[in-house]
């Protein structure tokens, strides 16, 4: 077990460098004139341009820029955004908001998906099962770029149930609608996996044994079936956390939430290399750590799995 974790951590280092290198290269390739992009329509004087170019090493070759960047990163310095703000400061502001958003989304999605999935799994072919099938199919087929503005229009503006945009310091209520939109990204798959997992486990031999033991239906389903059925679902929920982070780019953009996605969205538009790479690096680490945790959780949930 310990050896496995160490091996995975070592693999992570490689993945991390590979990922940052690729992201850095992509941002570099995308850079046209970042200073102009930053200034917008206003003209930049030659002296300012020269000073900024030197400060951000913009005239150096790619590998050298990457080298400067990594040197800073490894000494804990994420560098400065082209706007002049320290990226570490921006992160301490943005990450809590996004983590809150993603957690709310995850809890909503998992609760709804598992509850509805278990009921559907037990009552296959029932009215409830068919209705959830149709609803989840509709949600699944709507991309988030459609779903987010649509939800904003209907629930935020027309009905006025939620604030249409979140603002600088969003509270729980302001994050609820964006979290619902974000959660709907993963709810359909989680529900379907729960349903088929429950249905499959209900037919298994150990359920027959549990019934032969004279256990109540509540206990057979609530303990024996559920514990087995949730193994694939928990794994899926873990992997979905990554999906929620990437989904946050659009959602935060639409609802004006000052989180990771919002910053990334702006960084890409303004060709702000250090900002994009910095945020993506942390995203990569989050992805890797979550995946490791999910794998470890899998072994904890299913005693048949042992890591060597």
């Amino acid at each position, binding site marked *: 077990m310990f050896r496995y974790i160490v091996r995975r951590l070592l693999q992570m280092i490689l993945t991390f460098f590979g990922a940052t290198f690729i992201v850095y290269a992509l941002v570099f390739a995308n850079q046209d004139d970042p200073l102009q992009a930053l200034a917008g329509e206003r003209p930049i004087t030659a002296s300012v341009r020269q000073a900024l170019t030197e400060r951000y090493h913009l005239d150096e070759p790619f590998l050298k820029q990457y080298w400067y960047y990594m040197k800073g990163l490894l000494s804990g310095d994420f560098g400065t955004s082209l706007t002049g703000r320290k990226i570490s400061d921006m992160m301490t502001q943005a990450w809590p908001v996004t983590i809150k958003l993603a957690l709310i989304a995850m809890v909503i999605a998992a609760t709804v998906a598992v509850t509805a999935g278990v009921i559907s799994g037990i009552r296959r072919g029932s009215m409830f099962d068919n209705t959830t099938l149709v609803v989840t199919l509709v949600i699944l087929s709507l991309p988030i770029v459609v779903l987010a503005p649509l939800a904003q229009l209907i629930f935020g503006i027309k009905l006025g149930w939620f604030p249409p945009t979140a603002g600088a310091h969003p509270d729980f209520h302001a994050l609820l609608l964006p979290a619902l939109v974000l959660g709907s990204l993963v709810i359909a798959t989680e529900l379907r996996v729960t349903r088929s997992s429950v249905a499959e486990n209900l037919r298994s031999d150990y359920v027959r044994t549990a019934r032969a033991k004279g256990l109540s239906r509540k206990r057979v389903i609530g303990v*024996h079936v559920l514990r087995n059925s949730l193994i694939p679902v928990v794994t899926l929920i873990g992997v979905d956390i990554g999906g929620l982070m990437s989904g946050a780019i659009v959602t935060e953009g639409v609802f004006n939430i000052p989180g990771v996605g919002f910053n990334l969205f702006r960084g890409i538009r303004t060709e702000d290399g250090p900002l994009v790479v910095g945020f993506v690096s942390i995203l990569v680490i989050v992805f890797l750590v979550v995946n490791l945790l999910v794998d470890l959780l899998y072994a904890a949930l299913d005693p048949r799995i042992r890591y060597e």
Partner: protein
Amino acid sequence: MTDIQAQIDVLPGLDPRAPLLEVTDLHVEFRTQYGISRAVNGANFMLQPGETLAILGESGCGKSVTAQAIMGILDSPPGFITKGEVKYRGIDLLKLPENERRKVRANQIAMIFQDALSALNPVFTVGYQLSELFRMHKGMSRADAKRRSIELLDQVKIPAARARIGDYPHQFSGGMRQRVMIAMALALDPEVLIADEPTTALDVTVQAQIMGLLAELQQQRNMGLILITHDMGVVADVADRISVMYAGKVVEEAPVYDIYARPAHPYAKALLESIPRLDMKGQQLNVIKGLPPALTSIPQGCAFNPRCAYARDVCRQDPPPPAYIVAPGRTARCHFWREVVGDE
């Protein structure tokens, strides 16, 4: 052995003098989208304390479904009990409300399944699955339940029971797993044990150990044992009486020696003749021609008639042969049982 008076308190109407288990004219059908599959068509048998009844038959003849119907763990839908009685000491279990029926399971009637690996829950320890019985049925504390579980594992001769109580089913060997199943079935001292092909998934030496253990435990507790199997070798050693099932009917019921010596139903006879024997080495093995009928379309008259060497016109017409009394305690559903018995 459970105290009879305590049992009467739990199950009103219990008659200590009535047969331990009496199945009368049991009918089970499965309603599927392809039609109605009649899995059990009038099964009859009786079981007394300390007695071993073997239910014998090919795959798909309704043996396991009968057992599940007795236990009340039939998957319903698609399975439905359409007719018949399952009486435990005079109480018709089929008429009990579900929550009372549930208490009969494991307390009075317990069951062992074929493949212990899939029949045990993979994500709980053996100790948890055993303790669960004591905790749920007897309201014992976790510590007491664990202590009782260790005793049980000792009784079924699992070495180092105390150390193994925290192991998961996949950490046991096949034979040990089946011992765990047996321990689980016997936890609450049931009076009837149904063993559904308990040794089919095991190799021959382990089979003998498990059958030996079952016989020993049965004797200690004076339990009635229903042994469902298709293995005639296993049956000969342990059974007192045999019920041969074909297409959901008991076609012959007889004491074990009688049936081996002089079967009265052509199907039982054919089954016995299809056992490979060392003294018949080099000769053609007698096999039963054809296949058992599809349960969705059981032939008119005697269900065995298309494969039977004795079949005449009367066998191909309804009504099917009744259970003729061949001798006291011995029945056969064949119009020509005299011919079959005397044909040796």
